[in-house]
């Protein structure tokens, strides 16, 4: 299939890597010629999913987080997975303001941000096994195709 591209990174679940993960995905998506806002949207969503893997999935212990990205035509797919503790009730976890860590100043807005900034968010999770968050976004759709017009 033409116009596809993939990349995969695996890194330690250290909070220092939150910034690295955002930048890695942001630079992978530049080939789609995204707007500044689209890049910011994806960075926010990646940051939320990676932070969740670190603090909820692995409860701040150091294990591996995997990010897989795929570009197909103008659609970016980002998958963030951990092999951590998993989520009992995914539907409940995804409700805005729901958090299992209120005493640690978590806002419970992580999934809400992922849903607001990406076109779709799917969560697969099994208690004791881990969590995979799969997000998609069509990039560059609002852009005028002025380059194809004669000047």
């Amino acid at each position: 299939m033409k116009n596809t591209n993939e990349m995969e990174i695996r890194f330690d679940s250290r909070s220092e890597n939150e910034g690295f993960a955002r930048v890695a995905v942001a630079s992978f998506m530049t080939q789609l010629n995204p707007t500044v806002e689209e890049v910011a949207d994806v960075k926010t969503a990646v940051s939320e999913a990676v932070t969740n893997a670190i603090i909820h999935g692995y409860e701040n212990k150091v294990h591996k987080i995997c990010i897989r990205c795929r570009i197909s035509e103008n659609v970016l797919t980002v998958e963030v997975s951990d092999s951590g503790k998993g989520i009992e009730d995914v539907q409940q976890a995804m409700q805005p303001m729901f958090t299992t860590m209120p005493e640690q100043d978590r806002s419970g807005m992580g999934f809400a941000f992922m849903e607001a900034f990406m076109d779709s968010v799917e969560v697969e999770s099994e208690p004791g096994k881990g969590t995979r968050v799969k997000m998609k976004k069509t990039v560059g759709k609002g852009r005028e195709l002025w380059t194809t017009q004669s000047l």
Partner: protein
Amino acid sequence: MKYQVQENCLTIYLPREVDHHNAEEMKREADAVIDRNHIKYVIFDFEKTDFMDSSGIGVIMGRYKTVSLIGGEVWAVHANERIRKIMTLSGVTKIMQIYEEERI
């Protein structure tokens, strides 16, 4: 954490990126300063900030909980378009004042 205390008002100069990694230390330091100086007003200065996720919202909400007990307030200043969007989406704008700069 860069900050300034004037009487009962704490201004926190936020870093370029406010994520979980940066938020942890900021929360600890801010709480110590708030406690020590009997802070009632907390101003978050976003001048240098171009990225914030829900961890930053947690930082704001947590400080609001503390100072609102003594009738205090939290403010945001110098927030760019993106930061305002994040704050509006999260609903945190219901508890905090956003200082609108004059635009010429």
